[in-house]
């Protein structure tokens, strides 16, 4: 009967415990059990998701590193590669918004650093409940200042992201942070402990009691009890992380390292077992040497602590002195705590005694893989039917437009991003506020276009189509800046996978995303799964955040969304349909979450992307903005506001409803503005790519004026629409 309860308390099932006993050929001791419990937690082992993730296309000509390492890596020419990853920090942020979000940023930076890359940009994808709720406002402002607090201090610009507000996130906000780095291909690192005899050096912050079992906490539903899980939340020290970044990059550039690994979830246990397992080696670690923040930490605590701002270095003994010198110059503690062995066993010593002795691979790779049951949820059928004929038509389109523009999900996110230093490193050549941010790459003509996207209303209504759209929308945002999409990192935020309807959402979403990634040739090179986003049994909408990176060959060709010149012709690319399911219009005006999301034809999407890409790179168009939430009218308003220019637009109704025409969210569309003499070139391009385009008006005046078949529907001054759009979040927050 001994320790019967221990494994259950640590989140392991009886069967999993038996697997451990069988694998070891004996019962694990307490320290070992703790190590297994964190490594076999959902967060570290991906035991429920691993199989499904295999559906993603992960290879491509430019892919240098797909999933499996600390971050994905893609070749961008000139001997350089881009390295990026997105990760969730949802549960900690729900409990302590500032530190939860801050340490989320810190964690993702270390993943990029572990590849040997210089972090050059951060993004964040956020989801909250309604801002009417004071608790939500507290979470929102805490998360935003936490993200800013960390990124601003460390000096990595936060250049983009997204924020959505919906009731399903009320108790379980989502905080996904993405980091992008650039690395000289010769300096790419791996998290591998190769070379028996090599030293294992721990550098950075000392180890404290914080964050023990953080990963277990992330692998459970939130509850009253989780508010009591105090040690699971950590406090970040961005200054320390800055020192770590600089020191590690100097070590990498000098070729002093054999392997490099961050300490994140599951702390030292994860870093040691994963690096050894990847290299097929073992490791001996002496816990007496680990610098501690307080006295009397037990081996269990030291192995499980998730103290922030630490890295693990694998170093040849002959280079130890040089490594130490660099670390000390940056004011960092560094100490060899062990060495690599050839017997594949992770052996932990304390007071000269072995306190844990486990095959490294067993911890890192041998967690059971589950194939949970997937059953289509009942709600899908109930809400998918939407009869447009029963829906009253728009009467006052001006009011509808202002309502949409001022809804926090659509409104300007300036309140958020002014709190982020998005300019530091003076490389941000498209600031937040456009479709994607662009960061120039020093000493080249190139730039990286960056975005995160996911409309979780769509994934809720139809996870397959919603998953496709998340990828397509990201690609559209990338192309609108003039870049070519390269690859994807994703953060799959879902409810409890052990529930069949949640797992069905999960599978369908991945199927949809995979299909889109295949057709659009944007392989998935890394990502993160966050399950158990529920509170009191009510799950969030499936939220597969797509982080996408694109390559702009020449930053002088970059394109932004705002109208630039009076007299430019406004052209709508793509087709509009009577599609209102899942739209913000339906939600905000008719209070309905219903219908099917707009259909997505990936071939059409490709035609749109090709046309936009070529048009921008041939210098044909002056602005480009994709259509997303709020449809055509909202997109036009955004082009006007940002350019401080009005527009006169005349549309034809054809067989469309007015609301669908103005506010519908049909996919694969964009508005561009163009000098009149460039029209023939654009038409040629569109024709070549099989894309329908229509000139719908021109830029000018100080109002947004839209008529349909000669009748005026929208007539608002730019000032009016700007007031609704720009100040909305600020007003709610003050």
């Amino acid at each position, binding site marked *: 009967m001994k320790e019967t309860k221990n494994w259950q308390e640590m989140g392991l099932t009886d069967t999993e415990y038996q697997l451990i006993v069988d694998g070891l050929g004996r019962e694990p001791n307490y320290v070992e059990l703790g190590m297994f419990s964190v490594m076999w937690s959902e967060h570290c082992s991906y035991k429920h998701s691993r199989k499904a993730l295999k559906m993603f296309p992960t290879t491509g000509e430019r892919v240098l590193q797909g999933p499996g390492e600390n971050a994905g890596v893609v070749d961008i020419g000139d001997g350089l590669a881009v390295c990026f990853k997105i990760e969730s920090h949802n549960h900690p942020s729900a409990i*302590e918004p500032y530190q939860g979000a801050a340490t989320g940023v810190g964690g993702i930076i270390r993943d990029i650093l572990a590849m040997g890359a210089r972090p050059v940009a951060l993004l964040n994808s956020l989801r909250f409940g309604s801002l009417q709720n004071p608790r939500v406002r507290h979470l929102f402002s805490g998360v935003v200042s936490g993200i800013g607090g960390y990124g601003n201090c460390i000096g990595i610009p936060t250049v983009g992201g997204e924020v959505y507000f919906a009731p399903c996130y009320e108790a379980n906000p989502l905080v996904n942070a993405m980091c992008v780095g650039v690395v000289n291909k010769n300096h790419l690192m791996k998290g591998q402990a190769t070379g028996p005899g090599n030293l294992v050096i721990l550098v950075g912050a000392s180890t404290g009691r914080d964050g023990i079992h953080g990963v277990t906490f992330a692998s459970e539903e939130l509850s009253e009890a989780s508010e009591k899980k105090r*040690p699971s939340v950590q*406090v970040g*020290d961005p200054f320390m992380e800055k020192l770590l970044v600089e020191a590690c990059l100097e070590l990498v550039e000098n070729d002093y390292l054999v392997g490099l690994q961050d300490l994140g979830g599951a702390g030292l246990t994860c870093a040691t077992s994963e690096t050894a397992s990847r290299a097929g080696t073992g490791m001996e670690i002496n816990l007496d040497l680990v610098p501690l923040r307080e006295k009397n930490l037990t081996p269990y605590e030291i192995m499980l602590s998730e*103290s*922030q701002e630490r890295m693990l270095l694998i170093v040849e003994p002959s280079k130890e002195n040089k490594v130490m010198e660099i670390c000390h110059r940056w004011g960092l503690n560094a100490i060899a705590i062990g060495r690599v062995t050839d017997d594949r066993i992770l052996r932990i010593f304390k007071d000269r005694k072995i306190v844990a002795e486990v095959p490294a691979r067993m911890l890192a790779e041998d967690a059971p893989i589950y194939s949970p049951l997937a059953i289509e949820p009942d709600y899908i059928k109930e809400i998918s039917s939407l009869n447009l004929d029963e829906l009253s038509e728009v009467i006052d389109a001006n009011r509808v437009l202002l309502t949409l523009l001022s809804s926090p999900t659509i409104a300007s996110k300036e309140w958020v991003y002014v709190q982020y230093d998005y300019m530091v490193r003076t490389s941000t050549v498209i600031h937040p506020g456009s479709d994607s941010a662009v960061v120039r790459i020093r000493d080249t003509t190139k730039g990286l276009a960056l975005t995160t996207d996911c409309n979780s209303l769509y994934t809720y209504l139809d996870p397959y189509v919603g998953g496709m759209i998340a990828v397509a929308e990201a690609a559209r945002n990338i192309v609108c800046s003039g870049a070519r999409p390269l690859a994807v990192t994703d953060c799959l935020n879902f409810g409890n996978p052990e529930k069949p309807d949640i797992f069905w959402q999960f599978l369908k979403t991945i199927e949809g995303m995979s299909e889109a990634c295949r057709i659009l040739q944007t392989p998935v090179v890394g990502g993160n799964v966050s399950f158990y986003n529920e509170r009191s049994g009510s799950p969030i909408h499936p939220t597969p955040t797509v982080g996408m990176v694109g390559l702009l060959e020449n930053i002088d060709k970059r394109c932004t969304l705002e109208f630039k010149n009076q007299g430019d012709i406004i052209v709508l690319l793509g087709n509009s349909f009577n599609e209102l399911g899942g739209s913000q219009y339906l939600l905000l005006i008719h209070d309905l979450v219903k219908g099917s999301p707009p259909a997505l034809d990936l071939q059409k999407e490709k035609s749109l992307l090709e046309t936009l890409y070529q048009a921008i790179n041939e210098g044909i168009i002056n602005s480009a903005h994709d259509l997303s939430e709020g449809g055509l009218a909202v997109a036009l308003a955004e082009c006007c506001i940002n350019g401080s220019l009005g527009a006169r637009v005349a549309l034809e109704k054809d067989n469309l409803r007015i609301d669908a025409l103005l506010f519908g969210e049909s996919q694969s569309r964009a508005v561009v503005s163009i000098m009149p003499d460039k029209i023939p070139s654009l038409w040629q391009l569109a024709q070549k790519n099989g894309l329908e385009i229509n000139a719908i008006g021109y830029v000018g005046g100080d109002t947004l004026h839209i008529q349909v078949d000669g009748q005026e529907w929208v007539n608002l001054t730019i000032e009016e629409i700007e007031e609704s759009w720009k100040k909305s979040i600020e007003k709610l927050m003050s």
Partner: protein
Amino acid sequence: MLYKVKVIVMPRKGILDPQGQAVARALYTMDYKGINSIRIGKHLEMEIEGENQQVVEETVKEMCEKLLANTVIEDYRFCIKEA
């Protein structure tokens, strides 16, 4: 009655206090030796109207729990005096 209230909010034991550490390091390099364990928190002073000491105590406690401290990472204590 008017009461003077002082509230002290400190990082919890075991929780990293980067500020305290930075100051400790700075004092050390400034040649102040023999200093252990600096912790830095917040000090609030306010005046509050209340029926009696006990009522005020309850109010202040509630304010601390709800707003002034995040008990996940911070401890608080307070003292109340008639003004």
